[in-house]
């Protein structure tokens, strides 16, 4: 484990813990956010037959760096009618909520912030802070658009947590573990062991499980997409209706915090989907390190596969964003309560019956 290794190397448990807890931020979230914002703009541009940012650096690769410099220079505006304490604390809370989720995400077998047994429940619980932060931001802004966006966001996230949790429950029932590390280790080494293809079990139940798991994967992907407020479900920030929802009043680095949290959340959600259904950090084709007899290569490979899967799902999120128009509020609720929740209950029931076989 990373912590033990660093503890042996440095000899100070506090320092080692500090480094381990900061690593995801500095080696992962910040570079990822930089890259993802650029990728979002490039993907959207090319999907609309445009070019996107082209001026800063080769094909605009430094565009986000320039944007961050701009945001750092910006005046931090706080309107007089806002509730100052809550207003200043809200972006922090949103970011804490999304960053805390990274504590239990298994980047590789070697590097998990914390290998707790309740990993998946921890993520679901701690991302609840994001809702609190968003509501706080909307309320403290003292702005009708912000408040509307925040209320919509709360309604949406609470509704969509139900199908997410039902599918997670299904998987927990099937595998008997809540730990993301154990879940990843279960689906080891080859892609036919992934839960989307019925898990490691062999026999009639594997064939029965495949359609249910594909449905479950689709449901959890859509509902987590709704939880991070991305486009078919972006009614909380709906630019054309609500200016930009709960972060209308924010400027400068506070706005950037919301942005960073959104992109961190995107990856966290993609990571959950890939851990639950696509084997997490496990390679689909076995490990090169095992073949060559180089055990130190395996964690690097695992990190690569985990990042690749996560980025793929982030790409699909962007792809969906630039394909689908926004839901209406009633459509959003109908989609969740009339389609996702009943179907996930049926999946839960059927998977329960299959595990009895």
């Amino acid at each position, binding site marked *: 484990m990373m912590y033990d290794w660093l503890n042996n190397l440095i000899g100070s448990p506090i320092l080692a813990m500090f480094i381990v807890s900061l690593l995801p931020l500095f080696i992962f979230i910040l570079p990822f956010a930089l890259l993802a914002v650029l990728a979002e703009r490039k*993907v959207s*541009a*090319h*999907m*609309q*037959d*445009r*070019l996107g940012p*082209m001026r800063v650096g080769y094909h605009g690769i430094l565009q986000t760096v320039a944007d961050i410099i701009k945001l750092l220079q910006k005046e931090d505006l706080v309107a007089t009618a806002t509730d100052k304490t809550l207003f200043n604390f809200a972006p922090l809370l949103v970011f804490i909520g999304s960053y805390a989720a990274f504590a239990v995400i298994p980047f590789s077998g070697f590097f998990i912030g914390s290998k707790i047994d309740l990993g998946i429940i921890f993520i679901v619980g701690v991302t609840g802070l994001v809702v609190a932060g968003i509501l706080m931001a909307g309320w403290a802004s003292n702005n009708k658009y912000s408040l509307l966006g925040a209320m919509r966001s709360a309604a949406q996230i609470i509704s969509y947590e139900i199908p997410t949790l039902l599918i997670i429950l299904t998987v927990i029932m099937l595998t008997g573990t809540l730990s993301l590390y154990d879940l990843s280790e279960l689906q080891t080494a080859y892609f036919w062991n992934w839960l989307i293809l019925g898990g490691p079990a062999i026999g009639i139940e594997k064939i029965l499980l495949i359609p249910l798991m594909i449905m479950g994967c*689709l449901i959890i992907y859509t509902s987590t997409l709704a939880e991070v407020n991305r486009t078919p479900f972006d009614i909380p920030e709906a630019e054309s209706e609500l200016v930009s929802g709960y972060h209308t009043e924010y400027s400068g680095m506070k706005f950037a915090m919301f942005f960073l949290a959104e992109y961190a959340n995107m990856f966290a959600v993609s990571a959950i989907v890939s851990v639950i259904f696509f084997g997490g950090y496990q390679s689909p084709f076995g490990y090169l390190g095992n073949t060559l007899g180089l055990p130190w290569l395996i964690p690097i490979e695992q990190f690569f596969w985990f990042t690749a899967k996560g980025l793929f799902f982030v790409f699909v999120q962007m*792809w*969906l964003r*630039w*394909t*689908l128009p926004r839901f209406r509020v009633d459509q959003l609720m109908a989609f969740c309560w009339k*389609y996702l929740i009943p*179907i996930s209950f049926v999946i839960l029931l059927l998977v329960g019956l299959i595990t009895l076989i």
Partner: protein
Amino acid sequence: MIDYFVKFWQGLSTILIGMKVTFRHLFVPAVTIQYPSVKPQMPERERNRLYVNMDDCIGCDQCARACPVNCIEIETVKSLPEEDLGKTSNGKKKALWVTKFNIDFAKCCYCQLCVFPCPTECIYMTDVYEFSEFRRENLLYDFVTLLPEEREQKKKNLLEFQAKKEAEKAAAAKKAAEEKAAAAQKEKQEPKTPNPSEDKKEENNQ
């Protein structure tokens, strides 16, 4: 109940169709023209900023007269007989110094009516369309190739030449009058009635 599943399936399949469309467009070349560095191809008979090739201009003023908004101002000065202004590219002989050829692009309406009457085809439309200015005066384009001193010089030359010619003429007339007076005196000696109309003519000449 069947309707429920049909709806669900339709929703799912149409999303996939939409995703297929956007994915295909991901690899379609962009239609963007990166304007300041890459310029769009202009049509063949585009009408933009005018240009006057002063080597070919004979100062005939036809373009100025054709202009519906009077944005062209031309002033010409006759050349001296000993000066050779050369020929235009289509073989017309130039006889005038063009001392003023201003086009005010703030007034110009880009109708191209000045282009057709030109006998030497020296005024024509170019493909330049980026010539915005901060001050309106800067849109007054001066096409004359002569230096300001040269223009003054040409005018002065002509005046001097005219004065010289006038003087020559006056001298010639004086001479003629003198000769005539001499002849008249000769005639006076031979008796003959003087012609009053001739006297008047002489006075006029002087």
